[in-house]
C-alpha cells in the first residue's frame, strides 16, 4: 500500500473512499470517525431525496459511536480494521431502540428491545451505524418496489430499479451514502441488487453469519452478508460479522474463512491452476445480449489470468426456481404468522362487527401486509396444507437435494462456478410490478446457491447500454474465500482497464431534493 496521505481524489470527498482506505486514514489519524459520519450524513441529505435508499438515519447513535472510537484511538487502544467506518443496515435486522420495519406497514411502530447478533458485533468493533435502508417488504421482491415506504431508485438511472430485496443497501453504497452496508440474501437479495447497481455483494455460506435478529423470511435460505463497492471492503465486513453464534442453532461452529487474505491474494491477479466452471444452465435463454457479452469478456479475463475454464452441467438448476417458490413461501407463511397484532406492530380493528382475536388478526394482516407478502403467504399456506404437502413442499425438498448434488458433483471438477448474476440489467420501475413471474426470473441464477447453502459473490464486470452487469462466483460451502479471490482478481483486472472503479462512470446524482429518511434522535424506546 502507498504511504498514508490525506484524501486526494478529484472531489476531495471522503465518501468516495473505499472502506479499506477509510480504515487506513483512521488508523493514521488523518481523518476522524466523526468526520466520516458527518460526510455521509451530508451526502444522504443531498442525494437521498432522489435515491431513497434510507428509511431512517441514526445521527445521534452514529456520532456517539464515532466519538467513542475517536477517543479510544486517541488513547492508543487496539482497534479493529472497521472501527469508525460507517455502516448502513438493511431494515430487516433488529436494532435495539431503533424502529425496524422490514419495509412493512405492519411493523411501522416496532422498536426492537434487542440487537441482532451482527449488529451487536458491529457495535462491539465500533462501526457507527448510520441508518436503516429500504427493502422490499419482508425481503420479498427483486426491485424494492414492494416497500410500504416507496421504491428506492437506481443511482445509475433514477427511473430504474436498484434490485431487491436489498435495493436500499445497494443503492446507499452505490450512491456513496455509505461505504458499507448489511444485506440479507434468501434468493439473491444481496447479489442481484449488487449486480444491477455496479456494487459488490456476498451471500456467505449458510450458517457462516448469524441469523439471530434477522427477521426471517425463509429460515433455511436466509443469510446475512456484506454490501460494498469493492471486494476487499466486502471481505472486511464479512470478517467482522461472521462466526459462530450460540443463539443461532444453524450457525457453523468454526472460524470465519480468511476472506480478507483471499481478497488480497486475488488482487495479485494470478489464477494459475484455478479451475473455473461455467454453469451450462445459466448462460443462454432469457439472458440479455449485453449481459452475455460482458460475461464472455470476463471469462476471457479469467483465462488470461491463468484460470482453466470449462463448462459444467448442473441439470437440476432448471428446477431450482420452481422449488424455491415452494420452499420460500412455505417457510415465509409460517415465519410471518406471528404478525398478529397481539404483542407488537400495528393493530387494526375490523371495520364492522365485534373486535375478537380472529377479526383483529384478520383486519391487521389485511391492512398491514402488501400484495406480494399476501401472495407468498397464500402460496405457502397452500403448499403446506394437508393433502398437498407431499406434492409441493415434499417435492421441492427433493429438488433441493438434487441441486445440492449438482453442486457437489460440480465442485469435484472445479474450484468455483461462474454465471452472470442476473439475466438482465436493471429494468424500469413499474415494468414488472404486475408480472410476478417475470420478477421472479430475476433470481434464476442466484437461487441455486440459497437452496444448496453455498456462498456466492457478485462483482461488477462492466456496462450494457450504460447499466451495470455483474459476475456471480459460486464456491463450495465453507469455502467463501474462493468467492473473494476470484472476485478480487476480476475486479483488479477490470479496474485496470477502466482506470478506476466502475462506479466512477456513474452519472452525478441530482442534489437538493429533501431526503425522505427519518432522522432518529437517540433511540425510539427499546431496552438499552
Amino acid at each position, binding site marked *: 500500500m502507498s504511504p498514508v496521505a490525506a484524501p486526494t481524489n478529484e472531489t476531495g470527498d471522503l465518501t468516495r473512499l473505499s472502506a479499506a482506505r477509510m480504515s487506513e486514514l483512521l488508523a493514521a489519524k488523518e481523518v476522524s470517525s466523526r468526520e466520516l459520519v458527518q460526510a455521509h450524513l451530508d451526502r444522504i441529505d443531498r442525494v437521498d431525496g432522489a435515491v431513497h435508499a434510507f428509511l431512517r438515519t441514526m445521527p445521534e447513535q452514529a456520532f456517539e459511536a464515532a466519538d467513542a472510537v475517536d477517543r479510544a484511538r486517541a488513547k492508543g487502544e487496539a482497534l479493529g480494521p472497521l472501527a469508525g467506518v460507517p455502516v448502513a443496515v438493511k431494515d430487516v435486522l433488529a436494532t435495539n431502540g431503533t424502529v425496524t420495519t422490514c419495509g412493512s406497514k405492519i411493523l411501522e411502530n416496532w422498536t426492537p428491545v434487542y440487537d441482532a447478533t451482527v449488529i451487536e458485533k458491529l457495535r462491539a468493533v465500533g462501526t457507527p451505524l448510520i441508518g436503516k435502508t429500504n427493502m422490499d417488504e419482508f425481503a420479498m421482491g427483486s426491485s424494492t418496489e414492494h416497500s410500504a415506504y416507496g421504491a428506492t431508485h437506481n443511482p445509475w438511472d433514477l427511473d430504474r430499479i436498484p434490485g431487491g430485496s436489498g435495493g436500499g443497501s445497494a443503492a446507499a453504497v452505490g450512491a456513496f451514502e455509505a461505504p458499507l452496508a448489511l444485506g440479507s440474501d434468501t434468493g439473491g437479495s444481496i447479489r442481484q441488487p449488487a449486480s444491477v447497481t455496479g456494487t459488490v455483494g456476498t451471500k456467505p455460506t449458510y450458517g457462516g453469519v448469524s441469523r439471530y*435478529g434477522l427477521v*426471517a423470511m425463509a429460515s433455511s435460505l436466509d443469510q446475512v452478508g456484506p454490501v460494498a463497492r469493492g471486494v476487499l471492503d466486502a471481505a472486511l465486513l464479512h470478517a467482522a460479522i461472521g462466526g459462530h453464534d450460540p*443463539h443461532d442453532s444453524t450457525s457453523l461452529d468454526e472460524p470465519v474463512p480468511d476472506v480478507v487474505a483471499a481478497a488480497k491474494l486475488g488482487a495479485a491477479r494470478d489464477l494459475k491452476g484455478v479451475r473455473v466452471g461455467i454453469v451450462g444452465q445459466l448462460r443462454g435463454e432469457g439472458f440479455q445480449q449485453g449481459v452475455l457479452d460482458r460475461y464472455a469478456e470476463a471469462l476471457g479475463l479469467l483465462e488470461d489470468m491463468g484460470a482453466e475454464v470449462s463448462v459444467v452441467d448442473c441439470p437440476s438448476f432448471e428446477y431450482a426456481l420452481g422449488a424455491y417458490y415452494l420452499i420460500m413461501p412455505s*417457510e415465509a407463511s409460517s415465519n410471518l404468522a*406471528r*404478525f398478529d397484532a397481539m*404483542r407488537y406492530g400495528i393493530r387494526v380493528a375490523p371495520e364492522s362487527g365485534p373486535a375478537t382475536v380472529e377479526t383483529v388478526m384478520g383486519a391487521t394482516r389485511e391492512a398491514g401486509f402488501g400484495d406480494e407478502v399476501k401472495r407468498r403467504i397464500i402460496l405457502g399456506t397452500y403448499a403446506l396444507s394437508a393433502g398437498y404437502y407431499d406434492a409441493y413442499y415434499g417435492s421441492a425438498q427433493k429438488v433441493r437435494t438434487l441441486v445440492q448434488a449438482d453442486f457437489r458433483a460440480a465442485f469435484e471438477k472445479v474450484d468455483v462456478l461462474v454465471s452472470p448474476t442476473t439475466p438482465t440489467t436493471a429494468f424500469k420501475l413499474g415494468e414488472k410490478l404486475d408480472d410476478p413471474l417475470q420478477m421472479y426470473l430475476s433470481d434464476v441464477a442466484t437461487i441455486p446457491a440459497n437452496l444448496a447453502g453455498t456462498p456466492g459473490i457478485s462483482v461488477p464486470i462492466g456496462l450494457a447500454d450504460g447499466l451495470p452487469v455483474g459476475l456471480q462466483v459460486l464456491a463450495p460451502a465453507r469455502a467463501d474465500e474462493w468467492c473473494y479471490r476470484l472476485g478480487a482478481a476480476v475486479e483488479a483486472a477490470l479496474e485496470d482497464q477502466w482506470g478506476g472503479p466502475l462506479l466512477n462512470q456513474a452519472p452525478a446524482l441530482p442534489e437538493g431534493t429533501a431526503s425522505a429518511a427519518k432522522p432518529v434522535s437517540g433511540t425510539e424506546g427499546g431496552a438499552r
Partner: protein
Amino acid sequence: MTAQTDMDPTPLDFDEAMERFDPVFGIEVHVELNTKTKMFCSCPTTFGAPPNTAVCPVCLGLPGSMPVVNHKAIESAIRLGLALHCSIAPSSRFARKQYFYPDVSKDYQISQYDEPIDADGYLDVTLADGSIFRVQIERAHMEEDAAKNTHIGGTGHIQGAAYSLVDYNRCGTPLIEIVTRPVEGTGAHVAEVARAYVAGLRDLVIALGISDARMDRGSIRADVNLSLRPKAAPGEDQSTVPLGRRSETKNVNSLRAIEQAIRFEAGRQAARLAAGLTVKQETRMWHEESKDTTPGRSKETAEDYRYFPEPDLLPVVPDPAWIEELRGTLPEPPAQRRARLQKEWGYSDLEMRDVVNAGAIDLVEQTVAAGVTAAAARKWWMGELARTANEQGVELVELTVTPQDIAELEQLIAGGKLNDKLARQALAGTLQGEGSPAHVMEARGLAVVSDDSALTKAVDDALAANPDIVEKIKGGKVKAAGAIVGAVMKATRGQADAGRVRELIMERVGV
C-alpha cells in the same frame, strides 16, 4: 345438525355400560419438565411469578429471534424414554405446529411430529388386586408449553369474556408428551387401569427427578380418549371387533378425575349407542364441579396444523455413548421399589398406598434411614404432618420438618425427655420455624418433669384437694385415679410422665 339430535340421552350406569360394551382407551399425558430454563431460551421456568416477567425475545416470539434447544430437556426425554423401555431415535426432529392463537407467541408451537425422540415402549401398572397390566406406549416427544390465557368478564371462559389477558411466563416451558397405543382388554377395569397408568407415570417422573409432577399445578395434564365397541360374540376374539368412534376428554387434572371422566364417558357413549345414536368424534371438556363432560371444539372441522420441519433447529442426534451413560442413571422402577420397601417396612397394602398417595415414600425412607422405626415414621408423616400439610394446602416435602427432625423427636421420646403430647408441641414449634424439636423443647421448656420431689408435691396437693376421690381409690376404684393424674398433669402443664404420676398416686394413697 340440530341441537335436538345432538342431545345425549341419560347416561347408562357404568356397570351396565361395561356389561354391554367393550371399552378401549388411550391417554396423552403432558409432563412439564423441571429444567431450570425454558425449552428454547434461557428464561427461568417459574410458577406464580408476576405475569410476563419471565420472558425474553425468544419465548415472546419477537421478530428475528431464534430457538436453541435445552440440552437438559433432551436428557430428561431420553431418560424417560429409557425408563419406559422406548427406543431412542438416533435422529429426531422438531416441527412447527401452526395455528393462530394468542397463547402461542409465534403462532406456531415447536413440537416433535413425525420424528419423536422416544418410540415403542411400555409401562407396567399394578392394579388393586395385585395384577399387573402392561400399557403400550406409542411415543414420547418434546415440545414447548403455551402461554396462559385469563378471560376477564362473563363466566371466565373465552365465550362471553369482555377481554383476555395473556401471561407468557409459561410460554416455552419444556413438555414431554407421552402417548399410549389404544389400550384394549381392560373390560370393567378401564377406569382403574387409566388411573393407575397416570399414577405410574407420575411416580416414574418423580423417581427420575425430571418433573415436579404436581397435577394440581398442571405440571402433569392428561387428555383421555375413550371409545366403546360391541362385546364380541361368544367364541369371537374381542380384539377383532372394530374400534368404535372415540371422544377425547381434556382438562382431566387429577387421578380421581381420570377415573371419573372415563366412567362418565363410558356411560354417556353407551347410552348413545344403546339408543341407536352414533358417538361423535370430538374433543370434550371435563368439568370438575359437575363431574361430567361437554363438547369442546368439534373435530369435524379439525384444524390443519400444516406441520413442517422447524428450519431454525438442527435434528437432535444424541451420542449413543451418552444414551448408555444416561441408562446408568435410571432409578429403581417405582413399582419394584414400592414392593421392596413395603416388605422392608412391614406395612399393609392399605398403609403403603396411603404413604404412596401422600407422596411420602421418600420421606419415610429417609426417616427410617435416620434410625426411626418404620411404624413411627408412618405415624408421624401420615398423622400429625399429613394433617398440617393438608390444612396448609402444601405437599409434605414443603413442610419445614425434615426426616432428621423426626429422628430427633423419636430420640427425645425414647430418652424420656418428651412424652407423646409434649412431642407434638415440639413438632408444632418446628413446623412454625422455631428450629429442631430439641431446640423447641429447650426454648419452650417442654421437657418432661421427672424430678420425683416436685411430682410428689404436686400429687399430694391434688390428693388433698380431692378427698372424695382418695376415698374411692381406697375403696378399690383404681380407675378414679385418672382424675388425679389429670389434675397433676394440668398443674405441671403436661410436662409430667403420666406413668410415674400414677405410680406416685398409688404409693401415697397406699394401695
